[in-house]
């Protein structure tokens, strides 16, 4: 039963913030995480949000994606959600926890999935674009096959054993549109945080000072040292004249030079 690996899935959803208008919306990668979870068709899918109950309206956009109910762990404003989430997830014992990459509002350090993975003693995989059960040829049961996005559009395949927390990369399949009817019909279920969990305010954040972000000037590569002429050259001249030049070689000789150069650059094996 390879399907059993991914039969119990939890998705952590946050409230996003539109980068221009600043309005509350569904988080972009969080919605993609929910999309990924819905596409897996797990036997049990739990969507969880931790935060003040007053914000719950912005969460309806997730319900509009075809979710029937969404659990809200009610926390006071400014409280750290990690402990409450870990305690709640321990009870659910999901085999896969999907989250967005980074919150669109607040600190946005991207630490939450790592802390949860640590709390659940699960493996942590960042930047996932596809999750599925490992194919049957891989004899070990309980493994998940994962595709991870790398810079420059590259992809990496991995297998992970055991429980898994994964963050979703923006190049994962796009989230489906949110429909109004299901969004109205869906149930938002407030859950009180278990009393065993001590909900603490985040002291570090209150220590920080905040001010509006101002774009910084772009860093220019200035060459130091050398004579004034050298520096002027480095600043103004494009790299030219350094190259190797073959004038009217035969087609074969030209092709060979290109081939060798590509091999040297590591572009061809």
């Amino acid at each position: 039963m390879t399907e059993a690996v991914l039969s119990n899935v939890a998705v952590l959803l946050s409230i996003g913030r539109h980068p221009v208008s600043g309005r509350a919306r569904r988080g972009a990668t969080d919605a993609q995480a929910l999309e990924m979870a819905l596409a897996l068709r797990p036997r049990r899918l739990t969507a969880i949000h931790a935060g003040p109950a007053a914000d719950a309206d912005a969460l309806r956009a997730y319900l509009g994606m075809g979710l029937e109910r969404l659990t809200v762990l009610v926390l006071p404003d400014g409280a750290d959600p990690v402990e409450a989430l870990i305690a709640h997830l321990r009870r659910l014992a999901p085999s896969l926890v999907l989250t967005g990459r980074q919150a669109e509002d607040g600190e946005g350090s991207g630490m939450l999935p790592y802390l949860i993975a640590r709390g659940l003693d699960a493996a942590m995989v960042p930047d996932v674009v596809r999750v599925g059960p490992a194919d049957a040829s891989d004899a070990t049961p309980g493994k998940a096959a994962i595709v991870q996005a790398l810079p420059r559009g590259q992809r990496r395949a991995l297998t992970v054993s055991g429980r898994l927390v994964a963050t979703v990369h923006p190049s994962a399949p796009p989230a489906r549109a949110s429909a109004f009817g299901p969004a109205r019909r869906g149930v938002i279920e407030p859950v009180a945080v278990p009393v065993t969990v001590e909900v603490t305010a985040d002291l570090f954040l209150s220590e920080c000072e905040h001010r509006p972000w101002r774009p910084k000037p772009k860093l220019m590569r200035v060459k130091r040292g050398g004579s004034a002429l050298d520096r002027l050259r480095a600043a103004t001249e494009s790299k030219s004249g350094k190259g190797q030049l073959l004038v009217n070689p035969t087609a074969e000789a030209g092709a060979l030079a290109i081939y060798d150069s590509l091999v040297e650059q590591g572009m061809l094996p």
Partner: protein
Amino acid sequence: MSNSPIIRRRVDPRAERAARTVLTGPRPRLLRQPVAPTTINERRRDPRALRTAALVQHLPRPRYDWTRDAASPGTAAPAGVAVTAAPAIPLRVIAEPAYLVLAMLDRPGGEVSEHDRQVIAAARLLADGADAGGGGAVVTVATGSGAALAEAGSDRHVALPEGWADDYVPERRAAAASALMAALSPRHILFPDSPDGADVARRVAAAAGERLFTGVQSLSPDRATRQSSGGSLETGHRPTRLMTVAADAFAPLDGVRHEARPLDLATPMVAGEEVLPRLGGARRLAVDPDALALSEADFILSAGNGVTDWQSFAELGEALGATRAGSRVVCDAGHLPRERQVGASGTVVSARCYLAFGIAGAPQHLQGITGVKHVIAINTDLHAEMIKRADLSIVADAQDVMPALIRLIRERRND
């Protein structure tokens, strides 16, 4: 200008006369034989000799190259390379560091990336900081030897196992970093805010139960800032122990030389190898190069107005596994879709290798490839701008070279 001007001996009659004068007798006498001139005026430059040494071409017009080494007339210095010997950069040694700042580098594929250099520069800010008293040392931690990091500003180097350079072992790297944190008790640990670096940093922070200050944009010994709230706020705090450094926020150092002395520490490796990794079987997947966005592509095959044989061009793209692109003329003519246009009104690419067939190299096109590391150009015109820009230029017909290159690749692949 040259540093060692040519000295021409000038006849100085007074000095010669003084040298021949014997003052022992009742009156001064002059010797017949002139004594070898004792002093030469070292200060005197000979502008004529300098000019002849710099002359590279007589006809049709005289051309001078003033960067040439005057001491060896006749040997043309490679153009673009300064001839004056670079003054030796003094070595800075921090023998007894007051505290340590760790820089955990990515070094993807064993190469020191630009981001790695920036992280070292940020670490130097913390190590040399005036307010904190300075006198700290930067310890770089990366796979491979530290020799290449001395000029980036590293005082000490801890080498991680060679095998970790190519494998995906974030759990081992994180364990090694945690072990180093315990063994060296550094004041700060900096990571690059790259996908892999930030991943390791978060693992370390989660394991240590410490706060991670991610994507640091500015840094001084008593204040670090980062972007928060989706980029709308700047958050400042005094530098925490664990931080990741945003890309392109700090200028890499140059003109410095540190010792990058290897530290023989087994702890990180042992701790790393002890971890039982849960992630396994990592392998790169083949991606369709033409499905990549042009700005993301690493290897681009580009066509200009000089290409007429589109069948070969398509086959070549497939044989090379390169992303296909073109100049504006080509996209206007409909040979390639618009989103495949490179240049000012197209896409600015950042590929590592750019193979250009029949592109003239208009300024609008060259703007699009300023970030490319290695350019290969094939053009029938020796004086095309593209030929000047390229690292390897071939003056030949694109329609001949493309099939020859396809044949060569297939041949090499078969044996």
